[in-house]
């Protein structure tokens, strides 16, 4: 059994102590130390109390260090921990999807790192080790990777050569900052800031009139734009400094980060969706970003959040498409756009939006003493048909040999590639407005996680008949893709995969959440199910309800 790094003790003490110290200083400053009935003894009692707390913290962290042990066996990763309540955990290696290492600046100086184990189905980190030395963290990462591949043969235990697929040059890093402009931010800030109009308008000198107000608004707009650009650039640079993408066998590894450094992995056989993303600025310069979505939780920000990781933060478009095709060979999509009447729908939508804004401005104007140029929105009118056309132009879907590819968005355009065998359910939805236009949206649900900003691959606003056909086709192709994989694995496909194949053959389909059901450590059952994975139960009463559940079989 291995222990944590000894340096973790002072670091953890500082971490915990930091917040306590802050609270103490705050209390001191606010005069809480002068407890009335103690008089002069008040501050002294306070200092004694503070010292006691510090001692307690140090003692606790020392105990935690001494009582924390872990061990990597051939099938499991065992952790024994806990100061007051002991906890023995055995995590089957099969469940571990990623081993992610992160280090902040202080940790890098000390040479320690935090290790997170991610599984496919959880909504939070399965296990977190705080802190081991960086070399030990790398060793764990490599060992688990090898053991998962079932490398029994000692000869295979040599370090597999990691080939570098992509490294972000300094120039590209600068471009990442420059081009990572979130076009929605200025809009949101503008809307939020518009609440200050009444106050601002009183600052405007009387008699200045229309040009001054417009000038002021423009100035404000430019300031907001520049600010959000700068913020986005700094964030992007901090996140992607020193970005590298490497391939080791059937896994992609990435390194990134300036302040917080991440060493993580993307298992190729867990990939649910590939996303090629760009914005108008990137499109102009012919650049794009590649995101890879796996099932389960991925720590750290800047990758799109939960479950989605930037595989290529920025590269020329052909290069991104090449790399994407290396991972999932989908070919060159020829998108089918929605019917042309959809443009009229978008134009109507924008006109209504403009109308609402104008009405709001008019209302504000009539309530205030100052006169607001509520008719200023007329300036945006000629843009409406252009905006509608552009939005329509960038929509599309394509059914490839093995993948369905969808394209949506203008300010943030996403081309999503979903292999047929990753499709979970197909959802056809029609809002009340879509029904009027005889349109529908077909959404492809995958096991990849969904954050607030990401969306599922969807063929949006297609004709209703196309939607019905699409539903049937997708279901059919899912079945044949699954059958093909099943028969391939039965005829003894090997486990190693080249990058161009992109996935290993597995006896069960690569639906990660499913694999968790058959393990003994049942920690990530779906939120509401009361199912026992191994046995069938008769009735299982719970507070207020009666649930009978059945486990079907080895998941597909």
């Amino acid at each position, binding site marked *: 059994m291995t222990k944590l790094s000894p340096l973790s003790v002072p670091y953890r003490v500082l971490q915990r102590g930091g917040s306590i110290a802050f609270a103490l200083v705050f209390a001191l400053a606010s005069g809480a130390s002068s407890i009335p009935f103690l008089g002069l003894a008040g501050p002294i009692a306070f200092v004694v109390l503070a010292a006691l707390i510090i001692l307690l913290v140090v003692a606790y962290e020392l105990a935690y260090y001494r009582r924390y042990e872990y061990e990597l066996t051939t099938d499991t990763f065992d952790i024994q921990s806990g100061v007051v309540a002991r906890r023995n955990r055995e995590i089957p290696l099969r469940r571990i999807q990623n081993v992610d290492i992160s280090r902040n600046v202080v940790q890098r100086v000390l040479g320690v790192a935090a290790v997170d184990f991610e599984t496919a*189905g959880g909504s939070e980190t399965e296990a977190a080790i705080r802190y081991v030395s960086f070399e030990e963290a790398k060793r764990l990462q490599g060992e688990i990777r090898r053991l998962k591949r079932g490398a029994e043969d000692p000869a295979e235990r040599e370090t597999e050569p990691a080939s570098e697929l992509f490294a972000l040059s300094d120039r590209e890093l600068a471009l990442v900052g420059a081009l990572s402009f979130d076009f929605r931010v200025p809009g949101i800030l503008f809307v939020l800031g518009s609440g200050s109009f009444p106050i601002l308008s009183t600052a405007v000198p009387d008699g200045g009139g229309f040009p001054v107000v417009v000038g002021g608004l423009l100035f404000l707009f430019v300031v907001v734009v520049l600010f959000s650009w700068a913020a986005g650039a700094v964030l992007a640079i901090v996140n992607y400094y020193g970005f590298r993408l490497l391939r080791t066998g059937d896994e992609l590894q990435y390194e990134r980060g300036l302040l917080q450094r991440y060493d993580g992995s993307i298992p190729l056989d867990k990939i649910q969706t590939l996303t090629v993303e760009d914005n108008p600025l990137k499109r102009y310069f012919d650049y794009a970003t590649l995101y890879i979505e796996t*099932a389960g939780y991925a720590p750290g920000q800047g990758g799109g959040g939960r479950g989605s990781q930037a595989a290529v933060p920025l590269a020329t478009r052909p290069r991104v498409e090449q790399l994407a095709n290396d991972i999932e060979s989908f070919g060159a999509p020829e998108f089918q756009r929605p019917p042309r009447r959809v443009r009229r729908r978008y134009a109507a939508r924008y006109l209504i939006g403009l109308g609402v804004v104008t009405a709001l401005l008019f209302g504000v104007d009539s309530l205030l003493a100052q006169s607001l140029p509520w008719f200023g929105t007329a300036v945006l009118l000629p843009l409406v048909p252009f905006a509608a056309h552009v939005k329509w132009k960038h929509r599309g879907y394509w059914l490839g040999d093995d993948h369905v590819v969808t394209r949506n968005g203008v300010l943030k355009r996403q081309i999503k590639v979903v292999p047929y065998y990753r*499709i*979970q*359910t*197909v*959802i*056809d*939805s*029609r*809002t*009340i407005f879509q*029904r009027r236009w005889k349109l529908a949206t077909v*959404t492809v*649900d*995958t*096991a*990849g*996680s*969904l954050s607030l900003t990401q969306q*599922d691959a969807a063929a949006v606003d297609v004709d209703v008949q196309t939607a019905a056909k699409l*539903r049937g086709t997708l*279901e059919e192709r*899912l*079945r*044949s893709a*699954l*059958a*093909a994989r*099943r*028969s391939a694995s039965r005829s003894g496909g090997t486990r190693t995969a080249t990058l161009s194949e992109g996935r290993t053959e597995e006896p069960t*389909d690569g*639906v*990660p*959440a*499913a694999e968790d*059901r058959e393990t003994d450590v049942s920690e990530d059952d*779906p939120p*509401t*199910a*009361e*199912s026992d994975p191994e046995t069938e139960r008769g009735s299982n009463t719970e507070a*207020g*309800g*009666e*649930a*009978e*559940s*059945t*486990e*079907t*079989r*080895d*998941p*597909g």
Partner: protein
Amino acid sequence: MNSLHPRVQVVWIGRALFLAGVVGLVVVAVDRLAVSLPALVPPAVILFVAVVGVVHALLRYRLWGYEVREDSIYLERGVLTRVRTVVPFVRIQHVDSSRGPVERVLGLATTVVYTAGSRGADVSVPGLTPDGADDLRERLRRLAIRAESEDAV
């Protein structure tokens, strides 16, 4: 296309009326404590919410349908947004049948189908009889097992 048991409308209408009551309480509170509204407003609001809720519940019942097909289960539902969902049997992780307290009083049950998806993670068929829910659960379970083990191709 199978429809749900008519009694599920009682559940939905009940929920709508409950919502109308809550809204009514809020409006009355606003009337007493904050802005004083004309005397007719609270009852009008309650009536409006109740009527809309009841109509929605009835329409919802009419539009709900499910079908166990050859390789998937197909559901149609929704009033404002009509949603049709196809859950292939191979994707079913497991199936639950459950009865909440209101359902037990009314003699109804729900069958829930779980997949590994994110948006369609659980798909429920409410308003079934207890036996119907158990039957559906068993049927789906067998179909799911068969779909997995089938040597297609």
